[in-house]
């Protein structure tokens, strides 16, 4: 899918470009932007997969209610990417499936 540029209408010069990693891939976004928005701007719509059905999940409400856009951010699972703001060097990954075991939480 073609990247969507969500920053066209914004005063771009105020924004600082940062790089971050999503599922092992290095991407760029703007500091202070919601992670979900940065992913969307990079053409990424699937943020995680439903633990029960395995269906793809992404931004649904975009305002923190639906919990569909959860991801592991810097090792902390189930962060809502629509409410978590992007910073330089963040490591974001799709939440692992149920049953993947306790090692998931080992720090």
């Amino acid at each position: 899918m073609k990247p969507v540029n969500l920053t066209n209408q914004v005063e771009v010069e105020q924004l600082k470009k940062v790089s971050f990693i999503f599922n092992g891939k290095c991407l760029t976004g703007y500091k202070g932007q919601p992670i979900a928005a940065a992913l969307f701007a990079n053409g990424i719509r699937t943020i995680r997969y439903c633990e029960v059905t395995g269906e793809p999940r992404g931004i649904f409400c975009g305002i923190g209610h639906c919990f569909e856009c959860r991801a592991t951010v810097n090792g902390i699972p189930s962060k809502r990417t629509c409410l978590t703001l992007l910073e330089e060097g963040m490591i974001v990954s799709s939440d692992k499936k149920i049953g993947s075991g306790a090692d998931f939480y080992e720090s």
Partner: protein
Amino acid sequence: MKQKVIVIGGGIIGTSVAYYLSKKDVEVTLFEAKDIAAGTTSSCDRAIMLQSKKPGPTLELALQSAKMYTTLELELEADLEYQKGGGMILIENEHELNVMTEMVKQQNQAGLNVSIINGGHAREINPLLSKNIIASTWWSEDAEINPMSTAFAFVKAAQRRNAKIKLNDEVQALLIEKNRVVGIKANKENYYADNIVVCTGVWTKKVLETIEIDVPIIPRKGEILVTERLPRVLDCNILSGSYIAAKLQKGNDNPYGIGLAIGQTKSGSLLIGGSREFVGFDHSTNSKVIREIAKRAIQVFPFLKHVHLIRTFSGFRPFTPDNLPILSEVPEVAGLFIAAGHEGDGIALAPITGKLMAEMICEQKTDFEMKPFSIERFTKNNC
């Protein structure tokens, strides 16, 4: 003519009593004011934990009950989410270690093969436990079950044996003739029976007040926290040393009676309890209590710091003054029985309660010494 028995109450105790009665040659009808498992049975956790039982008659009942649970899924032909994952009581300091060492000694004498393991061993079983846990008890026989599924399975199995189930049918009165119970009135209709068994938990006092029988069962509220779904992080039941203290406490140094109890449901949520409070039938949850339970849970499982709670709920345990259930005939009223007052042990004790009550009602005798559970222990003391 067949013996007719009416069971009042569709919680795990009433449904168990109805099921074991249905195995005898009697006509069983169960009356439930709301729905199956609508009260305490759907607002509790899932532990069948023997380690937490007071050594004595309750533990003896619990041992027999636990044995019955191992084959209950086969017997009821239903998935009850039964799992024998073991159980541990966490020990955080030297004082708790001394207390638990003494308790384990008593349990070993009572026939429970509980041991005390060091912190390293506890973390081998539960790798996510805090490094501050210095030791824990361990018993591989502790188990868990889905209480709601169990109540429904008892009902279905009883129905297959021709028991009748009446839902949304609140019993308004007990019909008494010449010091004998002859039936009940529900929904403006009279239903006649040879025996009535009252299995209404915290509502037992209210049911029997109508015939001026005083039953000292009062609600003891507990609050439980529910987390989001997690990967399998726990296969066993976890209690904290303070849970045991809160259960048996007489003093007032822990006003909310907070003690930790953690288990994981089949769908992945953790159920984190709990508290013990005497506040009547106020079922609100208290943010202070919730915060305190959460704080203690994080102390023993640091990873919980980043886990979301999705809801909280409260339930009422049917408390009796001596922590023993009432499994008894009512001496003043022939034909009338009570099976209630299990406090937090109702899930663990449900199968044995049903079996013993069925024996008591149909054969007038049981293999078990029932005297400690008689209602007379309360009336006699008052004389």
